[in-house]
Protein backbone atom coordinates (compact mmCIF):
# COMPACT_ATOMS: atom_id res chain seq x y z
CA UNK A 1 0.00 0.00 0.00
CA UNK A 2 1.03 3.60 -0.33
CA UNK A 3 2.47 3.72 -3.81
CA UNK A 4 -0.50 2.32 -5.64
CA UNK A 5 -3.16 4.72 -4.33
CA UNK A 6 -0.80 7.59 -5.11
CA UNK A 7 -0.34 6.39 -8.68
CA UNK A 8 -4.09 5.97 -9.02
CA UNK A 9 -4.74 9.46 -7.73
CA UNK A 10 -2.40 10.94 -10.30
CA UNK A 11 -3.77 8.69 -13.03
CA UNK A 12 -7.30 9.86 -12.33
CA UNK A 13 -6.28 13.34 -13.50
CA UNK A 14 -4.83 12.17 -16.81
CA UNK A 15 -6.71 12.53 -20.09
CA UNK A 16 -8.96 9.47 -20.17
CA UNK A 17 -8.22 7.08 -23.05
CA UNK A 18 -11.54 6.57 -24.81
CA UNK A 19 -12.43 4.36 -27.74
CA UNK A 20 -15.45 6.06 -29.27
CA UNK A 21 -18.04 4.31 -31.42
CA UNK A 22 -20.10 6.84 -33.34
CA UNK A 23 -23.51 5.33 -33.96
CA UNK A 24 -26.28 6.81 -36.07
CA UNK A 25 -26.74 10.50 -35.49
CA UNK A 26 -23.55 10.86 -33.47
CA UNK A 27 -20.69 11.24 -35.93
CA UNK A 28 -20.31 15.00 -35.64
CA UNK A 29 -20.54 14.97 -31.87
CA UNK A 30 -17.95 12.20 -31.61
CA UNK A 31 -15.63 13.99 -34.02
CA UNK A 32 -15.89 17.10 -31.85
CA UNK A 33 -14.69 15.17 -28.81
CA UNK A 34 -11.21 15.63 -30.26
CA UNK A 35 -11.47 19.17 -28.92
CA UNK A 36 -11.84 17.97 -25.34
CA UNK A 37 -8.47 18.13 -23.59
CA UNK A 38 -9.59 15.77 -20.82
CA UNK A 39 -10.38 12.96 -23.23
CA UNK A 40 -7.81 11.11 -25.29
CA UNK A 41 -9.47 9.50 -28.29
CA UNK A 42 -7.58 6.34 -29.18
CA UNK A 43 -7.74 4.16 -32.29
CA UNK A 44 -7.31 0.76 -30.74
CA UNK A 45 -9.30 -0.73 -27.87
CA UNK A 46 -6.12 -1.99 -26.24
CA UNK A 47 -5.13 1.61 -25.54
CA UNK A 48 -8.51 2.52 -24.05
CA UNK A 49 -10.11 2.16 -20.66
CA UNK A 50 -13.50 3.57 -21.55
CA UNK A 51 -15.66 2.36 -24.42
CA UNK A 52 -17.91 5.22 -25.45
CA UNK A 53 -20.96 4.28 -27.51
CA UNK A 54 -22.64 7.35 -28.93
CA UNK A 55 -26.00 7.49 -30.66
CA UNK A 56 -27.69 4.30 -31.71
CA UNK A 57 -25.80 1.22 -32.77
CA UNK A 58 -27.94 -1.30 -34.66
CA UNK A 59 -28.64 -4.68 -33.11
CA UNK A 60 -26.91 -6.66 -35.84
CA UNK A 61 -23.57 -5.29 -34.65
CA UNK A 62 -24.06 -6.84 -31.21
CA UNK A 63 -21.41 -9.53 -31.74
CA UNK A 64 -18.80 -7.12 -33.03
CA UNK A 65 -19.57 -4.65 -30.27
CA UNK A 66 -19.14 -7.39 -27.66
CA UNK A 67 -15.80 -8.36 -29.16
CA UNK A 68 -14.74 -4.72 -29.18
CA UNK A 69 -15.76 -4.40 -25.56
CA UNK A 70 -13.73 -7.44 -24.58
CA UNK A 71 -10.70 -5.98 -26.35
CA UNK A 72 -10.72 -2.84 -24.22
CA UNK A 73 -8.01 -2.91 -21.58
CA UNK A 74 -8.86 -3.45 -17.97
CA UNK A 75 -10.05 -1.70 -15.89
CA UNK A 76 -12.76 -0.87 -18.39
CA UNK A 77 -16.31 0.34 -18.55
CA UNK A 78 -18.69 1.15 -21.35
CA UNK A 79 -20.67 4.33 -21.45
CA UNK A 80 -23.60 5.26 -23.63
CA UNK A 81 -24.12 8.80 -24.82
CA UNK A 82 -27.70 8.64 -26.08
CA UNK A 83 -27.77 11.91 -28.08
CA UNK A 84 -31.51 11.71 -28.45
CA UNK A 85 -31.61 8.10 -29.55
CA UNK A 86 -34.11 5.93 -27.72
CA UNK A 87 -32.66 2.62 -28.87
CA UNK A 88 -30.17 1.43 -26.28
CA UNK A 89 -27.02 -0.24 -27.62
CA UNK A 90 -27.19 -4.01 -28.09
CA UNK A 91 -24.78 -4.41 -25.20
CA UNK A 92 -26.02 -2.91 -21.94
CA UNK A 93 -23.68 -0.06 -20.97
CA UNK A 94 -22.64 0.59 -17.39
CA UNK A 95 -23.27 4.31 -17.50
CA UNK A 96 -25.76 6.30 -19.53
CA UNK A 97 -25.46 9.97 -20.35
CA UNK A 98 -28.68 11.47 -21.63
CA UNK A 99 -27.54 15.08 -21.88
CA UNK A 100 -26.30 16.08 -25.32
CA UNK A 101 -23.92 18.68 -23.91
CA UNK A 102 -20.35 17.43 -24.51
CA UNK A 103 -19.08 18.93 -21.24
CA UNK A 104 -21.59 16.78 -19.33
CA UNK A 105 -20.28 13.76 -21.18
CA UNK A 106 -16.65 14.64 -20.45
CA UNK A 107 -17.53 15.06 -16.78
CA UNK A 108 -19.22 11.65 -16.80
CA UNK A 109 -16.32 9.92 -18.55
CA UNK A 110 -13.72 11.43 -16.24
CA UNK A 111 -15.81 10.60 -13.21
CA UNK A 112 -16.45 7.04 -14.37
CA UNK A 113 -12.78 6.50 -14.96
CA UNK A 114 -11.87 7.94 -11.57
CA UNK A 115 -14.33 5.70 -9.78
CA UNK A 116 -13.06 2.78 -11.77
CA UNK A 117 -9.52 3.51 -10.62
CA UNK A 118 -10.53 3.97 -6.99
CA UNK A 119 -12.47 0.73 -7.02
CA UNK A 120 -15.88 2.34 -6.57
CA UNK A 121 -16.94 0.77 -9.85
CA UNK A 122 -15.82 -2.64 -10.93
CA UNK A 123 -14.27 -3.28 -14.30
CA UNK A 124 -16.91 -4.74 -16.60
CA UNK A 125 -16.43 -8.48 -17.08
CA UNK A 126 -15.96 -10.00 -20.54
CA UNK A 127 -19.19 -10.25 -22.49
CA UNK A 128 -18.32 -13.18 -24.71
CA UNK A 129 -17.90 -16.68 -23.26
CA UNK A 130 -14.35 -17.84 -22.70
CA UNK A 131 -14.18 -20.10 -25.73
CA UNK A 132 -11.25 -20.70 -28.02
CA UNK A 133 -11.96 -19.90 -31.67
CA UNK A 134 -11.62 -23.62 -32.38
CA UNK A 135 -10.84 -26.56 -30.11
CA UNK A 136 -7.13 -27.27 -30.34
CA UNK A 137 -5.73 -28.21 -26.95
CA UNK A 138 -4.28 -31.66 -26.94
CA UNK A 139 -4.79 -32.22 -30.67
CA UNK A 140 -1.84 -33.09 -32.86
CA UNK A 141 1.57 -34.53 -32.06
CA UNK A 142 2.58 -31.61 -29.82
CA UNK A 143 -0.86 -30.70 -28.54
CA UNK A 144 -0.82 -27.45 -30.48
CA UNK A 145 -3.90 -28.30 -32.52
CA UNK A 146 -2.14 -28.92 -35.80
CA UNK A 147 -0.60 -31.60 -37.91
CA UNK A 148 2.26 -31.44 -40.35
CA UNK A 149 3.72 -28.12 -41.30
CA UNK A 150 0.60 -26.19 -42.17
CA UNK A 151 -2.37 -28.34 -41.24
CA UNK A 152 -4.90 -28.23 -38.45
CA UNK A 153 -5.75 -25.27 -36.28
CA UNK A 154 -2.59 -24.56 -34.28
CA UNK A 155 -3.56 -22.52 -31.22
CA UNK A 156 -7.11 -22.25 -32.43
CA UNK A 157 -6.80 -20.85 -35.91
CA UNK A 158 -5.79 -22.23 -39.26
CA UNK A 159 -2.86 -20.77 -41.13
CA UNK A 160 -3.17 -18.60 -44.22
CA UNK A 161 -2.92 -20.14 -47.66
CA UNK A 162 -0.95 -19.19 -50.72
CA UNK A 163 -2.37 -17.36 -53.70
CA UNK A 164 -0.71 -16.01 -56.85
CA UNK A 165 0.23 -12.38 -57.01
CA UNK A 166 1.19 -9.93 -59.70
CA UNK A 167 4.92 -10.14 -59.10
CA UNK A 168 4.86 -13.85 -59.85
CA UNK A 169 5.31 -15.04 -56.26
CA UNK A 170 2.86 -17.35 -54.58
CA UNK A 171 2.77 -16.24 -50.97
CA UNK A 172 0.16 -16.21 -48.25
CA UNK A 173 -2.97 -14.26 -48.74
CA UNK A 174 -4.80 -12.95 -45.69
CA UNK A 175 -8.53 -12.47 -46.05
CA UNK A 176 -9.74 -10.19 -43.30
CA UNK A 177 -12.86 -8.25 -42.58
CA UNK A 178 -11.92 -4.77 -41.42
CA UNK A 179 -14.63 -2.96 -39.53
CA UNK A 180 -17.32 -2.16 -38.47
CA UNK A 181 -15.48 -0.29 -35.71
CA UNK A 182 -12.22 0.43 -37.51
CA UNK A 183 -11.28 3.90 -36.34
CA UNK A 184 -10.58 5.33 -39.80
CA UNK A 185 -13.80 4.08 -41.39
CA UNK A 186 -17.34 5.24 -40.64
CA UNK A 187 -19.02 2.96 -38.11
CA UNK A 188 -20.69 0.04 -39.83
CA UNK A 189 -18.46 -0.07 -42.89
CA UNK A 190 -17.06 -3.57 -43.25
CA UNK A 191 -14.46 -4.14 -45.94
CA UNK A 192 -13.50 -7.68 -46.73
CA UNK A 193 -10.00 -7.36 -48.09
CA UNK A 194 -7.55 -9.87 -49.42
CA UNK A 195 -4.12 -8.72 -48.46
CA UNK A 196 -0.78 -9.92 -49.69
CA UNK A 197 1.76 -8.09 -47.64
CA UNK A 198 0.52 -4.56 -47.31
CA UNK A 199 -1.20 -4.51 -50.69
CA UNK A 200 -4.93 -4.95 -51.18
CA UNK A 201 -5.46 -7.59 -53.83
CA UNK A 202 -9.21 -7.43 -53.66
CA UNK A 203 -11.68 -5.52 -51.56
CA UNK A 204 -15.37 -5.72 -51.24
CA UNK A 205 -17.95 -4.09 -49.08
CA UNK A 206 -20.00 -6.34 -46.80
CA UNK A 207 -23.47 -5.00 -46.11
CA UNK A 208 -25.78 -5.90 -43.25
CA UNK A 209 -28.32 -8.60 -44.15
CA UNK A 210 -31.80 -7.49 -44.99
CA UNK A 211 -34.36 -7.99 -42.27
CA UNK A 212 -32.06 -6.77 -39.53
CA UNK A 213 -33.74 -4.04 -37.58
CA UNK A 214 -32.68 -0.98 -39.45
CA UNK A 215 -31.46 2.16 -37.84
CA UNK A 216 -33.73 4.34 -39.89
CA UNK A 217 -32.08 7.33 -41.39
CA UNK A 218 -34.57 9.30 -39.40
CA UNK A 219 -31.96 11.03 -37.35
CA UNK A 220 -32.92 14.59 -38.14
CA UNK A 221 -30.27 16.60 -39.93
CA UNK A 222 -30.59 19.85 -41.76
CA UNK A 223 -30.38 18.20 -45.14
CA UNK A 224 -32.82 15.41 -44.40
CA UNK A 225 -35.31 17.99 -43.17
CA UNK A 226 -34.79 19.93 -46.36
CA UNK A 227 -36.19 17.03 -48.37
CA UNK A 228 -39.68 17.91 -47.19
CA UNK A 229 -39.76 21.46 -45.94
CA UNK A 230 -38.23 24.64 -47.29
CA UNK A 231 -35.12 25.54 -45.33
CA UNK A 232 -33.27 28.84 -45.53
CA UNK A 233 -30.39 28.63 -47.99
CA UNK A 234 -28.09 30.22 -45.44
CA UNK A 235 -28.79 27.40 -42.99
CA UNK A 236 -28.17 24.76 -45.65
CA UNK A 237 -24.94 26.35 -46.80
CA UNK A 238 -23.57 26.80 -43.29
CA UNK A 239 -24.31 23.16 -42.64
CA UNK A 240 -22.58 22.23 -45.89
CA UNK A 241 -19.48 24.18 -44.89
CA UNK A 242 -19.52 22.50 -41.49
CA UNK A 243 -19.82 19.06 -43.01
CA UNK A 244 -16.97 19.66 -45.45
CA UNK A 245 -14.75 21.01 -42.72
CA UNK A 246 -15.47 17.99 -40.52
CA UNK A 247 -14.58 15.71 -43.39
CA UNK A 248 -11.27 17.54 -43.78
CA UNK A 249 -10.68 17.21 -40.05
CA UNK A 250 -11.08 13.45 -40.14
CA UNK A 251 -8.77 13.29 -43.16
CA UNK A 252 -6.22 15.25 -41.13
CA UNK A 253 -6.48 12.73 -38.32
CA UNK A 254 -5.92 9.94 -40.83
CA UNK A 255 -2.84 11.75 -42.10
CA UNK A 256 -1.49 12.05 -38.57
CA UNK A 257 -2.15 15.72 -37.98
CA UNK A 258 -4.59 15.67 -35.04
CA UNK A 259 -3.56 19.17 -33.94
CA UNK A 260 -4.50 20.68 -37.27
CA UNK A 261 -7.69 18.64 -37.14
CA UNK A 262 -8.51 20.35 -33.85
CA UNK A 263 -8.00 23.72 -35.48
CA UNK A 264 -10.36 22.78 -38.32
CA UNK A 265 -12.97 21.35 -35.96
CA UNK A 266 -12.95 24.50 -33.90
CA UNK A 267 -13.41 26.46 -37.11
CA UNK A 268 -16.28 24.15 -38.10
CA UNK A 269 -18.13 24.53 -34.83
CA UNK A 270 -18.02 28.34 -34.94
CA UNK A 271 -18.46 28.67 -38.68
CA UNK A 272 -19.79 32.03 -39.78
CA UNK A 273 -20.68 33.51 -43.21
CA UNK A 274 -17.92 36.12 -43.22
CA UNK A 275 -15.12 33.64 -42.67
CA UNK A 276 -14.32 32.78 -46.25
CA UNK A 277 -10.81 34.27 -45.92
CA UNK A 278 -10.19 31.83 -43.10
CA UNK A 279 -10.85 29.07 -45.60
CA UNK A 280 -8.13 30.57 -47.79
CA UNK A 281 -5.76 30.54 -44.85
CA UNK A 282 -6.68 26.94 -44.11
CA UNK A 283 -5.95 26.04 -47.71
CA UNK A 284 -2.44 27.48 -47.43
CA UNK A 285 -1.91 25.61 -44.16
CA UNK A 286 -3.00 22.31 -45.69
CA UNK A 287 -0.78 22.85 -48.72
CA UNK A 288 2.20 23.53 -46.51
CA UNK A 289 1.51 20.45 -44.37
CA UNK A 290 1.42 18.42 -47.60
CA UNK A 291 -2.04 17.03 -46.86
CA UNK A 292 -2.90 18.80 -50.09
CA UNK A 293 0.43 17.71 -51.49
CA UNK A 294 2.41 14.53 -51.79
CA UNK A 295 0.44 12.88 -48.99
CA UNK A 296 -2.65 12.64 -51.18
CA UNK A 297 -1.46 13.35 -54.71
CA UNK A 298 -2.34 10.52 -57.07
CA UNK A 299 -3.95 8.49 -54.27
CA UNK A 300 -7.21 6.75 -55.12
CA UNK A 301 -7.81 8.17 -58.59
CA UNK A 302 -11.39 7.86 -59.82
CA UNK A 303 -11.58 8.72 -63.51
CA UNK A 304 -14.75 10.49 -64.54
CA UNK A 305 -15.87 7.66 -66.85
CA UNK A 306 -16.12 5.36 -63.81
CA UNK A 307 -18.56 7.74 -62.23
CA UNK A 308 -21.51 7.22 -64.55
CA UNK A 309 -24.48 6.26 -62.51
CA UNK A 310 -22.49 6.19 -59.28
CA UNK A 311 -21.11 9.03 -57.22
CA UNK A 312 -22.40 12.56 -57.39
CA UNK A 313 -21.41 15.52 -55.30
CA UNK A 314 -17.86 16.60 -54.39
CA UNK A 315 -16.39 13.22 -55.35
CA UNK A 316 -17.76 13.55 -58.88
CA UNK A 317 -16.91 17.22 -59.16
CA UNK A 318 -13.35 16.51 -58.04
CA UNK A 319 -13.08 14.23 -61.07
CA UNK A 320 -14.16 17.00 -63.38
CA UNK A 321 -17.89 16.20 -63.65
CA UNK A 322 -19.69 19.52 -63.83
CA UNK A 323 -22.85 18.51 -62.06
CA UNK A 324 -24.50 20.02 -59.02
CA UNK A 325 -28.18 19.77 -58.12
CA UNK A 326 -28.11 23.29 -56.81
CA UNK A 327 -28.06 24.56 -60.39
CA UNK A 328 -31.66 23.38 -60.71
CA UNK A 329 -32.82 25.26 -57.65
CA UNK A 330 -34.24 28.73 -58.41
CA UNK A 331 -33.05 30.03 -55.05
CA UNK A 332 -29.45 29.25 -55.94
CA UNK A 333 -29.79 30.49 -59.49
CA UNK A 334 -30.84 33.82 -58.09
CA UNK A 335 -27.59 33.91 -56.12
CA UNK A 336 -25.52 33.38 -59.25
CA UNK A 337 -24.37 29.95 -58.14
CA UNK A 338 -21.77 28.23 -60.30
CA UNK A 339 -20.52 24.76 -59.35
CA UNK A 340 -16.82 24.44 -58.54
CA UNK A 341 -15.02 21.69 -60.43
CA UNK A 342 -11.55 20.27 -59.89
CA UNK A 343 -9.75 17.85 -62.10
CA UNK A 344 -7.39 15.13 -61.01
CA UNK A 345 -9.97 12.92 -59.39
CA UNK A 346 -7.56 11.82 -56.65
CA UNK A 347 -7.78 12.19 -52.89
CA UNK A 348 -6.06 15.53 -53.09
CA UNK A 349 -8.58 16.87 -55.61
CA UNK A 350 -11.44 15.64 -53.43
CA UNK A 351 -10.10 17.39 -50.39
CA UNK A 352 -9.36 20.59 -52.31
CA UNK A 353 -12.86 20.37 -53.77
CA UNK A 354 -14.44 20.20 -50.33
CA UNK A 355 -12.35 23.05 -49.05
CA UNK A 356 -13.27 25.23 -52.02
CA UNK A 357 -16.92 24.29 -51.65
CA UNK A 358 -16.80 25.15 -47.95
CA UNK A 359 -15.53 28.61 -48.87
CA UNK A 360 -18.18 28.96 -51.55
CA UNK A 361 -20.88 27.80 -49.13
CA UNK A 362 -19.89 30.48 -46.66
CA UNK A 363 -20.10 33.13 -49.36
CA UNK A 364 -23.50 31.85 -50.48
CA UNK A 365 -24.73 31.82 -46.90
CA UNK A 366 -23.64 35.42 -46.55
CA UNK A 367 -25.47 36.50 -49.66
CA UNK A 368 -28.56 34.34 -49.33
CA UNK A 369 -30.60 36.66 -47.15
CA UNK A 370 -33.87 34.96 -46.30
CA UNK A 371 -34.16 32.90 -49.47
CA UNK A 372 -35.46 29.38 -48.97
CA UNK A 373 -34.54 26.46 -51.10
CA UNK A 374 -37.14 24.72 -53.23
CA UNK A 375 -38.12 21.34 -51.76
CA UNK A 376 -39.46 20.31 -55.17
CA UNK A 377 -36.05 20.62 -56.83
CA UNK A 378 -33.61 17.83 -56.12
CA UNK A 379 -31.32 18.41 -53.18
CA UNK A 380 -27.54 18.57 -53.17
CA UNK A 381 -26.28 17.33 -49.83
CA UNK A 382 -22.59 17.76 -48.89
CA UNK A 383 -22.03 14.23 -50.18
CA UNK A 384 -24.00 14.45 -53.38
CA UNK A 385 -27.58 14.16 -54.57
CA UNK A 386 -29.94 13.24 -51.74
CA UNK A 387 -33.43 11.88 -52.22
CA UNK A 388 -35.64 9.45 -50.37
CA UNK A 389 -34.20 6.00 -51.08
CA UNK A 390 -31.20 7.45 -52.91
CA UNK A 391 -28.38 7.83 -50.43
CA UNK A 392 -24.95 9.17 -51.45
CA UNK A 393 -23.19 6.35 -49.58
CA UNK A 394 -24.99 3.81 -51.72
CA UNK A 395 -23.50 5.47 -54.78
CA UNK A 396 -20.02 5.92 -53.32
CA UNK A 397 -19.42 2.45 -51.88
CA UNK A 398 -19.60 0.57 -55.21
CA UNK A 399 -16.56 2.57 -56.32
CA UNK A 400 -14.38 1.05 -53.60
CA UNK A 401 -13.56 -2.42 -54.97
CA UNK A 402 -12.18 -1.13 -58.25
CA UNK A 403 -10.31 1.78 -56.68
CA UNK A 404 -8.74 -0.14 -53.82
CA UNK A 405 -7.50 -3.05 -55.89
CA UNK A 406 -3.72 -3.18 -55.91
CA UNK A 407 -3.36 -0.36 -53.43
CA UNK A 408 -1.00 -0.15 -50.49
CA UNK A 409 -2.98 -0.23 -47.22
CA UNK A 410 -2.11 3.33 -46.18
CA UNK A 411 -3.27 4.65 -49.54
CA UNK A 412 -6.39 2.52 -49.30
CA UNK A 413 -7.28 4.13 -45.99
CA UNK A 414 -6.60 7.60 -47.41
CA UNK A 415 -8.90 6.76 -50.30
CA UNK A 416 -11.79 5.60 -48.12
CA UNK A 417 -11.36 8.68 -45.95
CA UNK A 418 -11.38 10.93 -49.01
CA UNK A 419 -14.83 9.66 -50.02
CA UNK A 420 -16.34 11.14 -46.83
CA UNK A 421 -18.92 8.43 -46.23
CA UNK A 422 -21.80 9.27 -43.95
CA UNK A 423 -22.10 7.02 -40.90
CA UNK A 424 -25.88 7.18 -40.74
CA UNK A 425 -26.16 6.14 -44.36
CA UNK A 426 -23.65 3.33 -44.05
CA UNK A 427 -25.47 2.00 -40.98
CA UNK A 428 -28.76 2.08 -42.89
CA UNK A 429 -27.55 -0.03 -45.82
CA UNK A 430 -29.18 -3.44 -46.12
CA UNK A 431 -29.15 -6.06 -48.81
CA UNK A 432 -30.54 -9.57 -49.11
CA UNK A 433 -27.21 -11.24 -50.02
CA UNK A 434 -24.90 -8.93 -48.03
CA UNK A 435 -23.56 -7.67 -51.35
CA UNK A 436 -23.76 -4.03 -52.25
CA UNK A 437 -27.02 -3.22 -54.02
CA UNK A 438 -26.28 -2.08 -57.56
CA UNK A 439 -27.38 1.53 -57.92
Amino acid sequence: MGLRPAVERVAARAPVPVFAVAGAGAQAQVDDLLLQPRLHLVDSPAAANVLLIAGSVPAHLAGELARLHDGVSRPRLSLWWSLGSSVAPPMPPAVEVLDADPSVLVEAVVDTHRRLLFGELTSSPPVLPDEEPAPWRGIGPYGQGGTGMTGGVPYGRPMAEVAPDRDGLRLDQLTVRIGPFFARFPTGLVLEVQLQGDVVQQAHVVVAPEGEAAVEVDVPTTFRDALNTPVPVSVLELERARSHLRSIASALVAHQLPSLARRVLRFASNVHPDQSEDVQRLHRLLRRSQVLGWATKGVGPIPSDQLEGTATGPVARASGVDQDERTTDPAYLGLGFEPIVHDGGDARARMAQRLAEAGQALQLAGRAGDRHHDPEASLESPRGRLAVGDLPAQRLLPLLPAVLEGMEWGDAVSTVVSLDLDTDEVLALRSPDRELPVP
Partner: protein
Amino acid sequence: MAALEPLGAALAVFVFATIALVAIRSASDATAGVGETAPERVPFLGGHEPDVHAWSRFHARYYVMALLFLAFDMEMVFMYPWAVVFVREGGIALAEMGMFITILLVGVLYAWRERALRWA
Protein backbone atom coordinates in the same frame (compact mmCIF):
# COMPACT_ATOMS: atom_id res chain seq x y z
CA MET B 1 43.75 -2.37 -25.78
CA ALA B 2 43.40 1.19 -24.57
CA ALA B 3 40.10 1.70 -26.31
CA LEU B 4 38.06 -0.88 -24.47
CA GLU B 5 36.88 1.12 -21.47
CA PRO B 6 34.64 3.57 -23.35
CA LEU B 7 32.98 0.66 -25.13
CA GLY B 8 32.59 -1.04 -21.77
CA ALA B 9 30.80 2.03 -20.44
CA ALA B 10 28.52 2.05 -23.49
CA LEU B 11 27.81 -1.65 -22.99
CA ALA B 12 26.95 -1.07 -19.34
CA VAL B 13 24.57 1.71 -20.32
CA PHE B 14 22.93 -0.53 -22.93
CA VAL B 15 22.45 -3.41 -20.55
CA PHE B 16 21.10 -1.21 -17.79
CA ALA B 17 18.64 0.71 -20.00
CA THR B 18 17.34 -2.49 -21.54
CA ILE B 19 16.80 -4.10 -18.17
CA ALA B 20 15.22 -0.93 -16.79
CA LEU B 21 12.67 -0.77 -19.59
CA VAL B 22 11.86 -4.45 -19.38
CA ALA B 23 11.34 -3.89 -15.67
CA ILE B 24 9.03 -0.91 -16.27
CA ARG B 25 7.17 -3.01 -18.77
CA SER B 26 6.71 -5.79 -16.26
CA ALA B 27 5.67 -3.41 -13.48
CA SER B 28 1.97 -3.98 -13.99
CA ASP B 29 2.31 -7.74 -13.75
CA ALA B 30 2.50 -7.30 -10.01
CA THR B 31 -0.98 -5.84 -10.01
CA ALA B 32 -2.43 -8.27 -12.55
CA GLY B 33 -5.60 -10.01 -11.49
CA VAL B 34 -7.18 -12.97 -13.22
CA GLY B 35 -6.11 -14.07 -16.67
CA GLU B 36 -7.79 -12.97 -19.85
CA THR B 37 -10.51 -14.90 -21.58
CA ALA B 38 -10.00 -16.08 -25.14
CA PRO B 39 -12.10 -13.27 -26.72
CA GLU B 40 -10.04 -10.70 -24.85
CA ARG B 41 -6.95 -11.95 -26.61
CA VAL B 42 -8.33 -11.75 -30.14
CA PRO B 43 -6.26 -9.37 -32.30
CA PHE B 44 -8.24 -6.26 -33.15
CA LEU B 45 -9.44 -5.76 -36.72
CA GLY B 46 -12.35 -3.45 -36.04
CA GLY B 47 -14.74 -5.92 -34.47
CA HIS B 48 -14.49 -8.97 -36.68
CA GLU B 49 -12.36 -11.90 -35.72
CA PRO B 50 -9.48 -12.89 -37.97
CA ASP B 51 -10.03 -16.19 -39.76
CA VAL B 52 -6.37 -17.15 -39.81
CA HIS B 53 -3.19 -16.36 -37.91
CA ALA B 54 -1.60 -13.08 -38.94
CA TRP B 55 1.78 -14.83 -38.98
CA SER B 56 2.15 -16.01 -42.52
CA ARG B 57 4.43 -16.00 -45.53
CA PHE B 58 4.23 -12.24 -45.52
CA HIS B 59 4.70 -10.75 -48.95
CA ALA B 60 7.37 -8.13 -48.27
CA ARG B 61 7.35 -6.40 -51.62
CA TYR B 62 10.58 -4.54 -51.14
CA TYR B 63 12.77 -7.59 -51.51
CA VAL B 64 14.59 -6.13 -54.51
CA MET B 65 15.38 -3.00 -52.53
CA ALA B 66 16.58 -5.24 -49.70
CA LEU B 67 19.03 -6.95 -52.05
CA LEU B 68 20.24 -3.58 -53.25
CA PHE B 69 20.71 -2.61 -49.62
CA LEU B 70 22.90 -5.63 -48.98
CA ALA B 71 25.34 -4.49 -51.64
CA PHE B 72 25.28 -0.87 -50.58
CA ASP B 73 25.75 -1.72 -46.92
CA MET B 74 28.91 -3.56 -47.88
CA GLU B 75 30.16 -0.46 -49.63
CA MET B 76 29.67 1.61 -46.48
CA VAL B 77 32.26 -0.51 -44.69
CA PHE B 78 34.93 0.76 -47.06
CA MET B 79 33.90 4.33 -46.49
CA TYR B 80 34.68 4.57 -42.77
CA PRO B 81 38.44 4.02 -43.04
CA TRP B 82 38.43 6.17 -46.13
CA ALA B 83 36.83 9.06 -44.23
CA VAL B 84 39.47 8.83 -41.53
CA VAL B 85 42.43 9.12 -43.89
CA PHE B 86 40.74 11.38 -46.42
CA VAL B 87 42.47 14.63 -45.48
CA ARG B 88 45.87 12.98 -45.18
CA GLU B 89 45.60 11.23 -48.55
CA GLY B 90 44.07 14.21 -50.32
CA GLY B 91 43.10 14.18 -53.98
CA ILE B 92 43.86 10.53 -54.51
CA ALA B 93 41.31 9.56 -51.88
CA LEU B 94 38.71 11.76 -53.49
CA ALA B 95 39.36 10.30 -56.91
CA GLU B 96 39.36 6.69 -55.77
CA MET B 97 36.22 6.94 -53.70
CA GLY B 98 34.60 8.96 -56.47
CA MET B 99 35.22 6.12 -58.86
CA PHE B 100 34.03 3.49 -56.41
CA ILE B 101 30.83 5.37 -55.64
CA THR B 102 30.14 6.12 -59.28
CA ILE B 103 30.30 2.44 -60.05
CA LEU B 104 27.82 1.70 -57.28
CA LEU B 105 25.52 4.54 -58.26
CA VAL B 106 25.21 2.90 -61.64
CA GLY B 107 23.56 0.03 -59.76
CA VAL B 108 21.08 2.35 -58.07
CA LEU B 109 20.38 4.08 -61.34
CA TYR B 110 19.75 0.71 -62.95
CA ALA B 111 17.37 -0.27 -60.15
CA TRP B 112 15.50 2.98 -60.46
CA ARG B 113 15.36 2.68 -64.26
CA GLU B 114 14.01 -0.87 -64.01
CA ARG B 115 11.41 0.38 -61.53
CA ALA B 116 12.72 -2.22 -59.12
CA LEU B 117 12.21 0.08 -56.13
CA ARG B 118 8.46 0.35 -56.60
CA TRP B 119 6.06 -2.27 -55.41
CA ALA B 120 2.47 -1.12 -55.13
